[in-house]
């Protein structure tokens, strides 16, 4: 398959680009941040996302979605990245939808997927428990009690966790933290008894929460996928999220680059446009090269998820490792090329730096994914 967008995907990109630029520009993020909107996103915008088919991009038509693939989800995510749009796209349309699609029973799918596609509910995936993404270290306990399970433990860095109607929770039903065996995913209502949530306002003004589970009772049919054998499902879902997030990062880096290029072509010092200086030209050209190489890895990862998902893990690791690293370079160079203006809140470039830092950390940073590649290659 050619590593370029086909005609339909290009049309989708153009649609998403103009839609996001008009409905969810950076100014919209500033407004959410400055007004300290409790939800952290615009429910009206999310309804529009559903209307455009973005909320149901991965969901088959039978369940009310538009039945497209991961490349298309990445196309939307890249435009989200370009505009720093605060939306539940990743948490709900990508992670929660993928969990249900890959692990859900017919009843679970029928109950939730149409609501996701329709923009009626927000979902969130609760995995991390420590400061770094380490899924196999899951310790949150799910103990068999009566006809179901009782959950005890705490999750952190749960994107959209405080507004989620549905939580997908990685829990330990057997084994020890550090073991991949013994994990199970559960569907838990956001307002279930014993769930307490703290919104954690993050550096990038995007949503995250700490979620505590204190004797939370769920029925046996709340288990999503196999009991004790949930690691494989979790990895599959995480890999979808990582690849789509890599696409978002590619958009963040691409836009940060474009903003900085516009700046160096306009700003004058020493009687010259600063873009004339070779010091900045070479750094710009190097950065452009890094971003292009990342772009190739991201589309390869998304295409592989569509065509042969069983082969996707290492390619996704490459894409997320690359996207994190090259986007970090883009935002650092972006602030530096803006000089003192880059340090001000008035210029957007700093917002790109903040989002890049969070998205780098989310679902495993560049080191995490390089380590995964090394392990997959036996060293």
């Amino acid at each position, binding site marked *: 398959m050619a590593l370029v967008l086909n005609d339909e995907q290009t049309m989708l990109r153009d649609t998403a680009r103009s839609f996001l630029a008009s409905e969810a520009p950076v100014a919209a993020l500033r407004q959410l941040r400055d007004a300290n909107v409790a939800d952290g996103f615009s429910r009206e915008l999310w309804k529009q996302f559903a209307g455009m088919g973005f909320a149901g991009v991965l969901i088959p038509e039978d369940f009310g979605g538009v039945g497209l693939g991961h490349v298309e989800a990445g196309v939307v995510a890249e435009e989200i990245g370009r505009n720093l749009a605060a939306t539940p796209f990743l948490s709900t349309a990508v992670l929660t939808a993928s969990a249900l699609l890959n692990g859900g029973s017919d009843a679970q799918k029928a109950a939730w997927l149409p609501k996701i596609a329709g923009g009626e509910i927000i979902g969130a995936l609760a995995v991390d428990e420590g400061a770094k993404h380490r899924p196999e270290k899951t310790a949150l306990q799910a103990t068999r009690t009566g006809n179901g399970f009782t959950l005890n433990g705490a999750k952190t860095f749960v994107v959209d966790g405080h507004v989620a109607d549905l939580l997908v929770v990685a829990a330990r039903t057997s084994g020890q933290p550090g073991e991949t065996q013994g994990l199970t995913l559960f569907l838990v209502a956001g307002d279930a008894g014993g769930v307490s949530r703290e919104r954690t306002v993050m550096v990038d003004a995007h949503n995250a929460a700490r979620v505590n589970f204190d004797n939370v009772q769920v029925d046996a049919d709340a288990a999503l996928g196999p009991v004790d054998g949930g690691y494989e499902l979790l990895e599959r879902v995480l890999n979808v999220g990582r690849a789509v997030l890599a696409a978002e990062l590619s958009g963040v880096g691409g836009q940060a680059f474009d903003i900085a290029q516009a700046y160096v072509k306009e700003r004058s010092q020493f009687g010259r*446009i600063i873009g004339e200086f070779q010091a*900045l030209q070479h750094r*710009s050209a190097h950065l452009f*090269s890094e971003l292009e*190489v990342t772009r190739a890895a991201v589309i390869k990862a998304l295409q592989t998820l569509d065509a042969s998902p069983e082969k996707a893990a290492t390619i996704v690791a490459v894409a997320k*490792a690359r996207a994190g690293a090259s986007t970090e370079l883009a935002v650092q160079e972006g602030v530096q090329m803006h000089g003192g203006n880059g340090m001000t809140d008035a210029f957007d470039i700093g917002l790109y730096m903040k989002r890049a830092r969070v998205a780098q950390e989310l679902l495993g940073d560049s080191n995490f994914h390089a380590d995964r590649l*090394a392990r997959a290659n036996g060293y």
Partner: protein
Amino acid sequence: MADLETFRAETRAWLEANCPAEMRTPTEDEEDTVWGGRNPTFRNDAQRVWLERMGAKGWTAPEWPAAYGGGGLSRDEAKILAGEMRDLGCRSPLSSFGLWMLGPALLKYGSEEQKKKYLPPIVRGEIRWCQGYSEPGAGSDLASLQTRAEDRGDHFLVNGSKIWTSYADKADWIFCLVRTDPKAPKHEGISFLLFDMASPGVSTQPILLISGKSPFCQTFFDDVKVPKDQLVGIPNKGWEIAKYLLTHERNSISSMGGRAHRPVHEVAAAHVGLNDQGLLDDNLLRGQIARLEVDEIAFEFAMERAGDMAKRGEIHGAYSSLLKYYGSELNKRRHETLMASGGSDALEWESDRSEHGAAPRAWLRTKANSIEGGTSEVQLNILAKRILELPGA
């Protein structure tokens, strides 16, 4: 798609039947490759057989038209062939400046007679070509070249000198930039000539490099007579061909950045060892290798993507500079990491054990990657000017 799957199955079957086992191992060093020519050298019979079989199918040049000896494959078929060769570990049967550089230029600018005469022997590896571009006074500023070709009626008379001519002492023919109009502005008086290195007046002098080897020569032309039908394209308009060919040279240099060779982590595991958890027994080196391999894999995708963009006519003309810059820097990094992975074993210069210093000699050779075919700094200038459109670049 069904046709492509049939092609894949047939290709795999053919490769399994025809690629000798010895040709399914990674190449050890630059001398372990086959360059062909009038007097070819083969390390073993497998190299000869593999070249003959692939050459006969035209698969040394999979996408060239069959009329000129090529494989006549579509891009999708060529991708499948490359993928199957990679999966089976098949070596490239032929390394050749004819394949990488001259052929694409002839396909675009050559006359029908020139294509018929020169391309098939390139495909079969029968004529080994070298490149007469740089001169002692014309390196990064290539267009200031001074080698002259005077029009003497039925022939050109060539005088001058070229430098960094790779394997000039082993090559059969040369494609050469010469100045045919000394009065014209420097880009406008250049022509593109082909001639036999056995012509009277041609001599070569190998240059000893820091690797202890002499892959490059200085080449001298002293009243060399070149028939006029060996000029490619339009007289005095050779700079356009020169630039076109350079994009292919850049692509072939950038392809060194891929994973065609033995993975670095295998070398490291052999010399450094694994710990009781099965991880490389050097934490920081392990991280260095992992980051390198992330970039190597991603760069392969970048080359694949560039080919796909080119096929759709969606690629910027200066994109080859991006690949050349990135691939050559990556290959240098790969060899720095290989040296760190080999430790003191990789420092031996003469022993049989070290294959006469294969690792350090290859490492030193890669330092030219970011110089030859236009330095990294020249590539960055090209990107800044032509793609980023930065002012004054």
